[in-house]
């Protein structure tokens, strides 16, 4: 079994309030073909007024995963980092990062994707965020 941290970001499209993104990270024990144990899960929300660029995405992932206590290599989808070559992406992070490879890692990404997506939906509903506010209400970046 291996310990990994799977990461996924939901909501990278524009809504009226701006780019409201939720990043979910989970520390998991996996085998090459299955998920065995979930150690811990965390998620963070971010609001951007402009489309997120590569340094923004790196910062989002680093901020969220710093809260995880049980460490392991970060596993993410290639598309999350704008299909950047894996060797180049490694240089951007303070910890080891890899794109998903095995069935177990793909299942881990699927799990955190559900977490980030449903957290985002819940936050949008619970915070009563005005998602139809329009351009003038968007802020540069904040935690709601």
């Amino acid at each position: 079994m291996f310990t990994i941290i799977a990461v996924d970001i939901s909501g990278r499209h524009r809504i009226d309030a701006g780019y409201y993104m939720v990043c979910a990270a989970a520390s998991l024990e996996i085998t090459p073909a299955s998920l065995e144990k979930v150690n811990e899960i965390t998620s963070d929300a971010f609001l951007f007024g402009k489309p997120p660029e590569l340094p923004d995405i790196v910062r989002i992932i680093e901020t969220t995963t710093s809260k995880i206590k049980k460490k392991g290599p970060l596993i993410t989808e290639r598309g999350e980092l704008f299909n950047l070559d894996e060797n180049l992406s490694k240089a951007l992070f303070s910890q080891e990062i890899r794109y998903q490879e095995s069935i177990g890692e793909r299942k881990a990404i699927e799990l955190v994707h559900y977490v980030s997506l449903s957290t985002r939906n819940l936050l949008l509903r619970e915070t009563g965020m005005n998602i139809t506010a329009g351009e003038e209400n968007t802020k540069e970046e904040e935690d709601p």
Partner: protein
Amino acid sequence: MNSFQEPAADAARNVILVMRTDPESDPKDNSRKSDEFSELVKALNDKVTDIIVQARYPDRKYNVGSGKAKEIAIAARDKRANRIIFYDPLSTSQIYNLSKLCGEAGANCRVMDRFQLILDIFAERATTHRSKLQVELARLRYELPNARMLVSLSKKEERAGWGGLGDYEDSYEQDIKKRIARINAELKKADLEEEARRVYRHKNGFFIVSLAGYTNAGKSTLFNALVDERTESKDMFFTTLIPKTRAFVINKRKILLTDTVGFIEDLPHFLVDAFRSTLEGIYFSDMILLVVDFSEPAEHIRKKLMISHETLWEKSTSNIVTVLNKSETMKPADRKKKFEELSHLIYNPIFISAKTGAGLSELIDEIGMNLPPLATRTISLPNNEHGASALSWFYDNGLVEEILYGKYMTFEFSAAEDVMAKADDILSKVRYSPDYN
């Protein structure tokens, strides 16, 4: 559009391969892709006369730069190439422009991309009606988006219809669409038959094992070694295109082993769609033997395992065993090092050599351990004509042990749950037979 003369089918063609690579891409990865590309060409018994590589971002007109395109055309003329094959997918206009350039340089060759090459390999290997339909479907799906452009380029000078007001484009596209619909309907019928066969096999308690893996990993050699058969196995890509199923026995239980078509990197989606029913054979098996050529460099194995996992992960719920083939060629220390490097991709590993037979007994034991547990019960049948007929059914569908003959034939019967349910029907028929006492 391509007014060239292809050589006779049995004559080896001269081929020039063209690879455009992105400037920052990994050179090792590019060399692996280039080797694989050459292997693909060999699958059609063609001769690679030259490999032309250019590191640049794609050009809209020729895919490679215009100077390189001219160089390719001259090389094609000088080396009497019959085909120029690009690694990158080419648009219809790029094929047209390159063909035109070759024609101007005096070369007589066909310009195509890797997808068309794979389609050609599949078309050559397809022998059954179903596989021929699958290949044709893939070809039509490939052609459809380019159909309008293809016709407008080839019929540039003429206009169809009275007064030149009609056009050819729509009718050609419509023809392709109609043909796709017809093939889909025919394939659906064939797939239903295949599915019925699969359900029948499961219901009759067969344990189905599939061999999956990257192309040229040694699946057919392992298949031959396990079922003691002579399926064609060659050091060549896509030797197996039509799945083959054979039975063999482990712990007195019948197992069906299926040899399947191999996976390949960047397999175009229209090809995956056309061969979906073939892949479903893998997804719905009880166990998958994921065969890997372990003698290759670790980075190549990693890529190939990654592609295999990507193909399997969404639909397959079967138990996976990673069979590390050709491991006899390595030193134990190298083997250990490579294994540790790839451990995150290797599930239930077993080292074997399909060629020498080393490790096969461990693999057979592993399959045996994964067989679903059997239900066992004691059965008594009258020792008469009806009882004997029922006994023959029990022999065919499960394990019959410790049989005692007297007024009744009493024995221990072990079988899968589904078969056991059927056994009750058989017993009730015997009980209600006229001479049961």
